[in-house]
């Protein structure tokens, strides 16, 4: 892959590293460099879930399970809602887990087209 495209990949990685877990960044970068420009544009068109936004949602409305609904865990979200945030415990636990979950969901989505 030529230098211009490599630079483009590096720029993409710098701009989007917050959407993925650290150990996933390397895999994405490798696959992008192996692929063509088309692949990168397809990647850029995917909607990503912002981990920081999810943390805010979790802090504010985590008791209702809204954070889980947003990352796509509808079943878990309903369970969380029915138990009033797992008696509050699940609410607190998700404050710490939700960012990682958002990043994993983003990565799964990306893997489908890489």
């Amino acid at each position: 892959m030529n230098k211009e495209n490599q630079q483009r990949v590096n720029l993409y990685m710098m701009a989007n590293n917050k959407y993925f877990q650290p150990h996933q960044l390397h895999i994405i970068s490798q696959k992008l460099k192996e692929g063509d420009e088309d692949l990168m544009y397809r990647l850029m068109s995917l909607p990503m879930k912002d981990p920081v936004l999810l943390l805010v949602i979790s802090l504010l409305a985590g008791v209702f399970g809204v954070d889980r609904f947003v990352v796509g865990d509808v079943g878990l979200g309903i369970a969380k809602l029915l138990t009033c945030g797992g008696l509050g415990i699940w609410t607190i636990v998700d404050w710490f887990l939700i960012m990682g979950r958002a990043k994993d969901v983003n990565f799964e989505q990306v893997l489908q087209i890489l």
Partner: protein
Amino acid sequence: MRGVNPRTFYRLTLGGSIAGFIYLWWVRTSTTGLLVCPINSITGYPCPSCGTTRTILQILSSDPIQSSLFNPLAYIVLMGMMVLPVWSILDLIRKKISLYSVVSNGEKLLQNQPVLRWALLSIMAIIWMWLILQNQNQG
């Protein structure tokens, strides 16, 4: 449940069920009474699961048919609390992961069928509205 391996799933399910029973036992035997839902105390409006504890305790201690419906969703929670631990233990004994498979496929189904998702959420919203209206009539 994507990204959760079976072992964690079963630990959480069993742990959560046990925690639920301990909570129920604690509420029943404690004199200080229920931990009030923070949303209810701040805003005065019930959250969708308000009254679940009261409903379950009443179902378990008296005639279920005559129990006043504090919260219909409580029946789902109660069924869950009865079915999930039993199924989990059966799975562990038979060394199968049938519960995990059912839950995973259920989640996938919800992912792929937006109609189902919206149907479920609408039902919950309707029950929530009904709860709020009920509380307003009494309060």
